[in-house]
């Protein structure tokens, strides 16, 4: 600042924006004592993170939420008065008076009084058990009351209301209701169709939702007992949280004669100046561009503008983007740009998948060139990219539906997109960091991790929503510079999976600790442990539970069963090719009855038995193994099933015996561990009843032999398998599969199915064919030999557990009372069987 003596700054309010203003002012003056700053706060504690207020209910303390300690203010020479609201402003004398009688003169006054909850004029709001949701004190009151309450409601189905409703669930109320006046949820952010999808998801999670309900009265003698609606219905509740909107705290400004809006808000110009040039207003109390910005990011930008201006820099507050993305009880909801734009001014494209609870909508300009806005419910992965496309008016692809359906061209396209953004594209709106600022840190300072970028320019430190974009930018920029981007596993191993597999093999390492000692550092984690476990299994095929390997397995592998909701496990015996004798079927039925298991035919032509207590698993398997069953590896990254159609033995069209071949193939590759699961199928003719072309490797009978297809996938992004070999005999077919699988096992990234592996492979199918069929690398024989090694080493791991008391004793819930089962496990009844109880 220039040598001005006008340097006394008073800030009214100590909320989020007030804090940010102080921080920015300190940063800009670089710690020198150019300003003397006094802050008055009405609340008893220094500014805290209101955005994450609800975290208070999941165990965070007021201290965890603090943005800065009172010491921070002291260290920076700021006078902080807490529990001491300003009660009057004397504009003539340029001084404020506080509740406790402090009178402080100012040259500049910054009003950052925020807003309070808007309480609609409904009779009975004063009753006990009625709350608002704004401060830590509000939450403490809610928490205390919830202990004796059973049924709670939230008035208002907007962003905050739904968050409050989640809090009621978290507080353990039996019932949580949301009452909304509008005919849909989040009426400001999403449309009717989006609201419907969201509603269904929230209802599935236990919320009760009442729309188009206008509350007439809150009934009850002293404490709330029910809500009475204008349509004559009512809802019994013993607590209510009102979340019907916000009301700017403009009372102080109004009393001082500053211009305020009839519906609330201190009127400011583009420089955030009120009608008195010495007084600024920022945050949720300020009415800029005719609106109240009810989000923290625009508030932070306002703080930046005023701090800059006090330091003599010209800066104006531009209309701010109100796009939001949030996770409501685990459901993603996002809206950006103009989410509700209507035709004819625009064209809308909608995608809805009710089964998955996904709704997406984009609004495209009438000429198809520009993205105007949109809505995402259930899956908001594309949010950042869409937001950037919209904000930067980027030219749309010829098929704008690709924006929400994906380009189907793989990941390259997505990252290419990030680098296509203009340099001034705002990546982190909380901290106003642009694309150029991030790329610069990478090119000039060599920063390559999100942590580095955070320290350099604070990107990703606010809401965190931009983190994926920042990651993409780092990687994209590095690639552009020709830096080889190493695909390392995690902080413990600076290698890719393939590199680690080679090193482990060359050094003949057999346990996780050996690998960690030789090539890693630290103590490992849930990323590298299962990865190394899978590498070890792929190399040596030794029992996954021995030599300390049990505890490095994912839970499913550690207990050789899939864990389910509630903590029980499923049992899937192998039924090769889907063929089973009546006697074996009876055994499955008997076992299921004895241990009270739910049974279902799976999509993989076998039977899944669900709901087994961990301590019952060895006994269940003992009985199954005695009847000739083996593990089905439904829990492992391993071969699942080889489906078959009935084929030439019975079918009038069949040209080969597909069942026999399927059984042979399943027996050959069972138990082999791979980067991800493997599925296969064999069809007896071109009608393809076994769906072999959707499998990792699929075989279809021809008049002359077999056609082999590879790299198909079902799942969320289905992909057809591609033809690898035509009319080959059985032996050739098996040899090619040996090579194909072993090549995949040795080179794929962790958790990558064969289809994705192929999509990422340079040269694609032509290269794969050259390696597997034409053996251009000359590794064919080696691959076959390695595969034979795995096949020979096969043992049913469940049989080994059943027969080994040391392994067996790990299958208990309580180590100190092995005979006791987990008492929290609970089931519900359904169609004469049981099902897992819903998540709490």
């Amino acid at each position, binding site marked *: 600042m220039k040598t001005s003596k006008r340097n006394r700054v008073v800030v009214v309010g100590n909320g989020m924006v007030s804090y940010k203003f102080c921080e920015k002012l300190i940063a800009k003056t670089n710690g020198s004592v150019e300003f003397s700053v006094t802050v008055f706060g009405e609340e008893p504690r220094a500014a805290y993170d209101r955005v994450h207020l*609800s975290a208070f209910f999941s165990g965070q303390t007021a201290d965890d939420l603090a943005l800065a300690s009172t010491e921070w203010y002291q260290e920076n020479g700021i006078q902080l008065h807490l529990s001491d609201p300003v009660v009057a402003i004397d504009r003539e004398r340029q001084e404020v008076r506080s509740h406790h009688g402090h009178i402080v003169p100012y040259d500049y006054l910054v009003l950052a009084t925020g807003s309070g909850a808007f309480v609609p004029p409904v009779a009975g709001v004063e009753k006990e058990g009625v709350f608002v949701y704004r401060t830590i004190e509000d939450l403490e009151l809610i928490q205390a009351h919830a202990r004796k309450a059973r049924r709670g409601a939230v008035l208002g189905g907007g962003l905050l209301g739904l968050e409050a409703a989640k809090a009621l669930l978290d507080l353990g109320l039996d019932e949580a209701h949301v009452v909304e006046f509008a005919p849909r949820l989040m009426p400001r952010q999403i449309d009717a169709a989006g609201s419907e999808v969201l509603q269904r998801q929230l209802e599935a999670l236990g919320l009760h939702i009442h729309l188009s309900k206008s509350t007439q009265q809150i009934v009850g003698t002293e404490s709330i007992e029910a809500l009475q609606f204008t349509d004559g219905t009512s809802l019994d509740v013993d607590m209510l949280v009102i979340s019907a909107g916000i009301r700017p705290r403009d009372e102080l400004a109004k009393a001082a004669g500053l211009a305020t809006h009839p519906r609330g808000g201190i009127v400011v110009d583009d420089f955030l100046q009120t009608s008195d040039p010495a007084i600024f207003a920022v945050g949720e109390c300020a009415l800029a561009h005719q609106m109240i910005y009810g989000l923290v990011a625009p508030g932070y930008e306002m703080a930046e503008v005023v701090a800059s201006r006090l330091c003599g820099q010209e800066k104006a507050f531009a209309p701010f983007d109100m796009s939001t993305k949030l996770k409501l009880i685990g459901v993603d909801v996002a809206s950006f740009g103009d989410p509700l734009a209507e035709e004819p001014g625009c064209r809308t494209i909608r995608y809805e998948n009710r089964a998955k609870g996904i709704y997406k909508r984009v609004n495209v300009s009438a000429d198809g060139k520009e993205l105007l806005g949109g809505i995402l419910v259930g899956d908001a992965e594309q949010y950042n990219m869409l937001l950037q496309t919209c904000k930067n008016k980027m030219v749309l692809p010829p098929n704008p539906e690709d924006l929400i359906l994906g380009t189907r061209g793989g990941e390259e396209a997505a990252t290419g997109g990030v680098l296509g953004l203009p340099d001034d594209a705002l990546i982190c709106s909380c901290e106003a960091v642009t694309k150029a600022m991030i790329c610069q840190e990478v090119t000039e300072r060599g920063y390559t991790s999100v942590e580095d970028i955070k320290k350099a320019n604070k990107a990703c430190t606010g809401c965190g929503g931009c983190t994926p974009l920042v990651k993409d930018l780092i990687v994209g920029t590095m690639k552009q510079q020709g830096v080889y981007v190493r695909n390392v596993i995690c902080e413990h191993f600076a290698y890719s999976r393939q590199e680690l597999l080679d090193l482990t093999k060359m050094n003949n390492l057999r346990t996780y600790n050996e690998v960690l000692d030789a090539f890693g550092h630290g*103590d*490992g*984690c849930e990323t590298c442990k299962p990865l190394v476990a899978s590498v070890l299994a792929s190399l040596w095929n030794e029992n996954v539970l021995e030599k300390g390997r049990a505890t490095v397995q994912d*839970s499913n592998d550690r*207990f050789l069963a899939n864990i389910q909701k509630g903590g029980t496990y499923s049992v899937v015996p192998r039924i090769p090719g889907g063929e089973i004798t009546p006697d074996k079927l009876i055994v499955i039925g008997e076992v299921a009855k004895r241990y009270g298991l739910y049974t279902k035919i799976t999509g993989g032509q076998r039977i899944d038995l669900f709901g087994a207590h961990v301590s019952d698993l060895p006994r269940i398997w003992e009985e199954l193994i005695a009847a000739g069953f083996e593990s089905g590896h439904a829990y492992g990254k391993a071969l699942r099933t080889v489906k078959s159609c009935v084929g030439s033995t019975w079918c009038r069209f069949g040209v080969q015996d597909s069942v026999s071949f399927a059984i042979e193939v399943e027996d050959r590759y069972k138990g082999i561990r791979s980067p991800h699961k493997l599925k296969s199928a064999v069809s007896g003719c071109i009608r393809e009843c076994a769906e072999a072309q959707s499998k990792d490797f699929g075989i279809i009978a021809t008049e002359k032999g077999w056609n082999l297809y590879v790299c198909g996938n079902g799942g969320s992004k289905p992909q057809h398998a591609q033809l690898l070999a035509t009319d080959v005999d059985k032996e050739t077919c098996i040899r090619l599969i040996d090579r194909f699988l072993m090549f995949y096992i040795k080179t794929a990234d962790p958790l990558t199915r064969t289809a994705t592996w192929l999509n990422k492979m340079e040269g694609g199918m032509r290269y794969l064919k050259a390696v597997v069929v034409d053996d251009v690398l000359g590794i064919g024989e080696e691959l076959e030999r390695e595969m034979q090694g795995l096949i020979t080493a096969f043992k049913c791991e469940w049989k080994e557990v059943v027969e080994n008391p040391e392994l067996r004793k*790990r299958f208990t819930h309580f*180590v100190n009372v092995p005979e006791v089962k987990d008492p929290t496990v609970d089931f519900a009844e359904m169609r004469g069987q049981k099902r897992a109880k819903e998540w709490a």
Partner: protein
Amino acid sequence: MELITNDKDKITWHLACRAEDVPEDGGACALIEGRQIAIFNFTRRNEWYATDNQCPHRQQMALARGMIGSQLDEPKVACPFHKKTFSLRDGSCLSGDAYRIETYPVRVKEGLVYVGL
């Protein structure tokens, strides 16, 4: 169950299990005074930890079955259900959510594991 009371800091030590009952670099759950406590034998660091067995994310009794490891130097456990991770030292959630679990002191003497509640 044997009780050892330490009056000074008001911790009651409970005998939980034998050290060998808890797998190396892994966890096991013990029932103590009706509560489910996860006990971790962090052999690599030669440390023992105890926490609630319940994961606050979906209230699943599963942390003892989680994988342990470290983040920078902080010892942690990952819930097997959705891989939320928690510090074994202070119970804070390391995967960015606002959860917290209780942690308890552990003592191992003559092959026996004691947990202080």
